[in-house]
């Protein structure tokens, strides 16, 4: 970048964080979302310590405990190999969250960067090239593309992650594009151009900070959706493979034993729903809290 803009002001973020928290916490649903997400995250991180039967996560068999219905000993019951479902769900959070984080780490910067560039150069060939490629990716039904890739390669967690990433970035590029191209008309962008600031400075220092709130919100909401897609792929047998305790795989395997051993499917499915709901409520709360208000 041509113009080094050091922040010469010591940022006083404390007050703005407090204000954001005040707005966030005034909506009880946001708090519920935050608590759910914390439960999921903490049980994922500390699964080896917290899980009542940590050995249940992998290839482990205890037929004496097989197919136990929910009880005090096994709150969510056990599966056909006698593994504790609650423990497996906690490990399942690990895989699903890890997958979501990896996917978003690939998807968000790529999509945002391309969208910002296209949005700033709206109406030029740069815009056309980037956005038409985006459109092509959006035009392919996502699940079909993911299935095709997973079927082509060996079904595994990594391959399913690659597949989901490939079909997810266009959403971020669309989002960044729509914000950037509308901000392009704001007077503060025009003022920076009249002053003579470099386009890269304008894109990253004037436009990007205004995109962060909606992108962050979408990221939070997307954690749920990425988990859902991952679960779908696992369910049809193209994602993580048994005995990896991915939630989708557990639902899929357990479904064979419905309705007699209902707990094998219902509890992992509820765990997926709980995670998605939590992230959605959290995302909504963050969106409202980060909205700029004039006083």
């Amino acid at each position, binding site marked *: 970048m041509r113009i080094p803009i050091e922040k010469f002001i010591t940022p006083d973020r404390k007050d703005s964080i*407090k*204000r954001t928290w*005040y*707005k966030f916490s005034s909506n009880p649903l946001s708090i519920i979302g935050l608590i759910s997400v914390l439960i999921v995250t903490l049980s994922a991180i500390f699964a080896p310590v917290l899980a009542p039967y940590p050995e249940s996560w992998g290839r482990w068999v205890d037929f004496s405990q097989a197919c136990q219905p929910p009880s005090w000993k096994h709150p969510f019951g056990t599966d056909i190999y006698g593994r504790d479902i609650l423990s497996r769900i906690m490990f399942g959070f690990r895989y699903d969250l890890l997958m979501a984080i990896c996917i978003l780490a690939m998807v968000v910067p790529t999509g945002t960067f391309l969208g910002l560039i296209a949005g700033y150069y709206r109406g030029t060939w740069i815009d056309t090239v980037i956005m038409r490629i985006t459109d092509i990716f959006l035009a392919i039904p996502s699940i079909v593309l993911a299935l095709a890739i997973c079927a082509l390669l060996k079904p595994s967690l990594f391959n399913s992650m690659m597949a989901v990433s490939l079909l997810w970035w266009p959403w971020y590029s669309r989002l960044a594009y729509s914000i950037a191209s509308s901000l392009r008309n704001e007077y503060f962008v025009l003022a920076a151009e009249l002053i003579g600031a470099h386009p890269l400075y304008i894109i990253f220092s004037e436009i990007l900070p205004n995109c962060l709130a909606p992108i962050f919100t979408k990221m939070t909401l997307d954690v749920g959706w990425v988990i859902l897609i991952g679960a779908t792929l696992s369910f049809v047998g193209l994602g993580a493979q048994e005995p990896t305790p991915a939630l989708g795989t557990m639902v899929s395997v357990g479904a064979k034993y419905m309705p007699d051993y209902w707990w094998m499917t219902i509890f992992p499915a509820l765990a997926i729903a709980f995670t998605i709901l939590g992230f959605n409520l959290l995302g909504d709360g963050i969106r409202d809290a980060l909205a700029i208000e004039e*006083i």
Partner: protein
Amino acid sequence: MSENLLEVKDLYVNYKIYEGILKVLNGVNLTVKKKEKVGLIGESGCGKTTTMKAIMRILPDNALIPNGNIFYKGRDILKMSDDEIQKIRRENISMIFQDPTAALNPVLTVGAQLMDVIKYSTDEELTKREIRELAIKALKDVALPDPERILKNYPIMLSGGMRQRICIAMALISAKELLIADEPGTNLDVTIQDQILRLIGRLVEERGISVILISHALGAVKGLVDKVYVMYAGDIVEMAPTEKLFSDPIHPYTQALFKTVPKLTGGGIPEAIKGRIPDYINPPKGCRFAPRCIHAMPICMKEKPPLKNIEDEREVACFLYE
């Protein structure tokens, strides 16, 4: 008094925000008689719109009303049930907002929105044709050419002046007794603003309804209303018949405000009133204008001056006139 259509009595409104409690309205008193045209003027941020929103009962969720009454034909609006206030909003009082674009739904045609308003503004069962005819008549009343075509248009296809007229047409359907006009046409040009204000003036005259007009355009207020309330930082500081107020303002704030209006006769613009509108979290203890007032006396810092009748139809809240 039975002839009072609307009576706001000692109204306080606070907003709860992160930093604390904004004490915006500080005991507002305001009366509107039947068929009376009332103006409300003052700097932005002095609580004019808040007062109107309180009357319409459309304050945001974080607003609190610790004290005060709003009597509409003798009944307190603040104590009405939701159904009652909605009926009043549908049939008696209506408000025109500052921004005509934001007040119209961009995805529905003008006709659909207008006919909805007509349908719900009366208890009678109207046929579709009757509703349509009323809609066309409403558009004709606000001097819109070719109403048949406009009914089919989306708001974006119309100019700002036309949209503002549509908002007026809608408001007038529900305003059988009182119309609140919050800076109509402020964002439009002088000629269009002039047309809009004259239109409102003519329509309220014809229909014999009362109107509260809020505007920054002091000249426009002067040409339209019978009496004017001057508001500063949540207080009514002066009330007088229009002619008297403009020829002889007596509150120091009104005097200072009138001075800052650019004159067509030229001669530059006098220096603005020093300082800014007070911090509503910790407002000045006494008269809220005292810190900016050139006549401020010790008592002004301690006590709030009451709104006092000093002569016929003329009230002022200032210790200079004790």
